[in-house]
């Protein structure tokens, strides 16, 4: 069962994603910040990372770079509630699988996750 980790500072998003992904059959771990994820033991086992772009402290793209620096190549799907136009090409160019704008459809999310798992 693939492990999907969710990093988002918004509790509602974390809870709802856990609910949805578990209903589909994924194993899910959620983290309220980038640091808690880095500090966790799941880095090597994560099959797909769903990562919020803007968070207090370390932001999503920084975490992506940090993981890369540490040698982890985790397929990552960015999610963001900010209508920031340039964020999507930037994260994609740095290797992200996809970047979804909240609110996103289930199909878009599952499509992105599938793509990520395929890449993994």
């Amino acid at each position, binding site marked *: 069962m693939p492990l999907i980790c969710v990093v988002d500072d918004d509790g509602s998003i974390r809870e709802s994603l856990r609910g*949805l992904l578990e209903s589909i059959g994924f194993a899910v771990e959620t983290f309220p910040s980038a640091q808690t994820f880095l500090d966790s033991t799941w880095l090597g086992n994560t099959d797909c990372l769903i990562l919020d772009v803007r968070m207090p402290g370390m932001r999503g793209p920084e975490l992506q770079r940090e993981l890369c620096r540490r040698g982890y190549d985790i397929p990552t799907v960015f999610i963001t509630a900010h209508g920031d136009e340039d964020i999507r090409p930037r994260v994609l160019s740095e290797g992200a699988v996809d970047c979804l704008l*909240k*609110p996103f459809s289930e199909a878009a999310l599952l499509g992105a996750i599938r793509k990520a798992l395929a890449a993994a």
Partner: protein
Amino acid sequence: MNDDTAEIATLPDPYRFAIDTIPGLVWTSLPDGNVDFVNQRWLDYTGLSFEQAIGCGWQAAVCPDDLPRLVDYWHSILESGTPGEFEARLRRHDGVDRWFLFRGVPQCDDRGGVIKWYGQTTDIEDRKRADEELKRQTAHLDELFELAPHAVVLVDAEVRVIRVNREFTRMFGYTAEEAVGRPLLDLVAPEERLEEYRNNARMLSSGQKVESETVRRRKDGVRLQVSMTASPVLTAGPIEGYIIYRDITERKRAEALIAGETRLLEMIAKGEPLPQTLEALCRLVEQECSGATCSILFVDEDGKRLRHGVAPGLPTAYTSLLDGWPIGPEEGPCALAAFSRESVIVEDFRTSSLRKEFQAIVAGYGLRACWSVPILSRDRRVLGTFALYFREPRSPRQQDRETIEQFRDLASIAIERTEAENALRRSQAHLAKAQRLSLTGSFSWRPATGAIVWSEETYRIYGLDPSVRPTLDVVRERVHPADLPLFQQTLEVAIRDGKDFAFEYRLLFPDGAVKHLQITAHRSSADADESLEFVGAVMDVTERKRSEDALDRMRLNLAHVTRVSTLGQMAASIAHEINQPLAAITINGNASLRWLASEPPNLHEAREATHRIVRDGQRAGDVITRLRSLFRRDGSAKERLGMSEVVREMVAITRAEVQKGGASIHTRMAEDLPLVAGDRVQLQQLMLNLIMNAVEAMSGVHDRRREIIITTGPGEGGEVLVAVRDSGVGLDPEEQDKVFDAFYTTRQTGMGMGLAISRSIVEHHGGRLWAEPNDGPGATFLFTIPRDTGGAPCP
């Protein structure tokens, strides 16, 4: 003893007895003068014996001082043989001398030869004394007459001069010889007063006393002011009279001078035009100082030139010439007097040391002498000069000098008074103008008497005619009914406490117009003894109120615009705030569907997901609600609200924007804060502005945490204090207040209105907004909002 003596001596007793009882001293002598008989009374008086008295023995009884003349006289009548009498003193037996009349009558024979002398010596002591007394009194009266300080004339029934005294000759210029025997009319009656003179003379002749003040003429024609008393002397014969003249010319002159001076002072006091007063002054001096022509010149404001004042008696050409004449030491008497501040006396221009040019000028106008004195103000400024011109050489007497000084002082009073009045008038005009321009009237009010005095502008403000006497009732009629209790209460407190007061109220006019007035009153009577008086200003602030209302509306509009613009800048963040719950709702919805679709359906998980949907829907709704109020245009209603709640709401709305700026926000809210009466939207905007301001202040900070700390708590005066602390670039001390100015900004974007609007919002709520630098980096913006006192909602 001869035969005759023997004859008498041998008279029968009855005759002898008769002779002795005659109340006189009786004697007889022989033709040769030897006394041959004296009666008993003679002997009793002198104390001599008959033997001692006869012959020449009687001479021992005569006062030695009178004896030689008596003896001479006795011999003379003895020789002439005619009767005679002589007065001499006879010494009484006790040594006292008394006057007697010695009378001797000869008895002749047929041939005419004296055969006997009969004599009587009569005591005339009393008569003699009376005569002497009369002589003495007459001498005194003569002396009195001569030395009387007034002119005295004794006239006969035809009013011809019988006698005049020394003062008459001095006063009227006639010698006694010239006067005596002439009709008094010829001497003293002036032609213009003959009628009056004759009338007086008639009254005197008919025995009436006449008293009057009139004019009489000297020998040289000069008129004298006199006080005259004509008294009839009532004798058996025709009526004579005494006429006494007292010279009252000086007194009359002094009286006229005082009257003139009084008239001038009245003119000054009444504020008659200065030229008229000074002209009257000149005329009076000319009247007083014969031959003089007066001139008053003013000194220019710069003190450099003389200006024509008044000179009713001088040729216009001359006065025009002097107008603008320079003041200096060599420019003529007036210029010199103004220059030296001292009197300048030119007794004769021809012999004076004045410039030839000036001499020629005055000569051209026939002027020979000039006395000029400077007119000084009380503070020793030279106001002008006062001069007397003469057409012949003349030097002033002491009396002239006194007159000049007296009138110079009067001129000074008149000029200074006019100066003061002009200054007052100017100042009043300025005040009236200033009151008119500033729509500010003034008033004074004495509560004890109810006396109120208004300025012109106050009348205008109250819309009343200046003929109306202002009273509190008149004012009350105008006060807006809604403000009447406030009006009444304010005045009652003012009277009770006697302290300065200030308040605002409205007037309601019959046509429905409303005026807003601002009253500021100051207690003017500092002394407790004085009755209470207030002076103050009435300011028509209607226009200002209108402007303020317009400004308020404008501010609301502007606030709305800036609010919307701020929200526009925050659109992405706001979208984030809505997208977050929206995303969660979508995901939860999908999850719920999946749990329901699974076999068997996992109802528990589906229910959990649905609960989350409801919760997040609520969350999104809250955001929308808050945003909606911020987009609302009007926000003029105040309500009771808690500041912490407002802070929380705005922290929620701005969280995404704060986060976007890489900052975090923390709050420390005090419990149990009092509620405030406030406009929720305005206070939300205030918080929004301050939070956004803090975010922007930290945008350039990279070396430390970007942190906003918002605290709420009680202020020093019980109000609510809110502080928004950032860790941004901080404030320059100079900037500290400027940041609140409209359009002041240090940033590339923004209108610079945020803090200006914030301050006006706080002030609109009766609070205060200010900025303080932090101990460390950054600044803190603080504001207070007064606690709600639970009163009626504010309009």
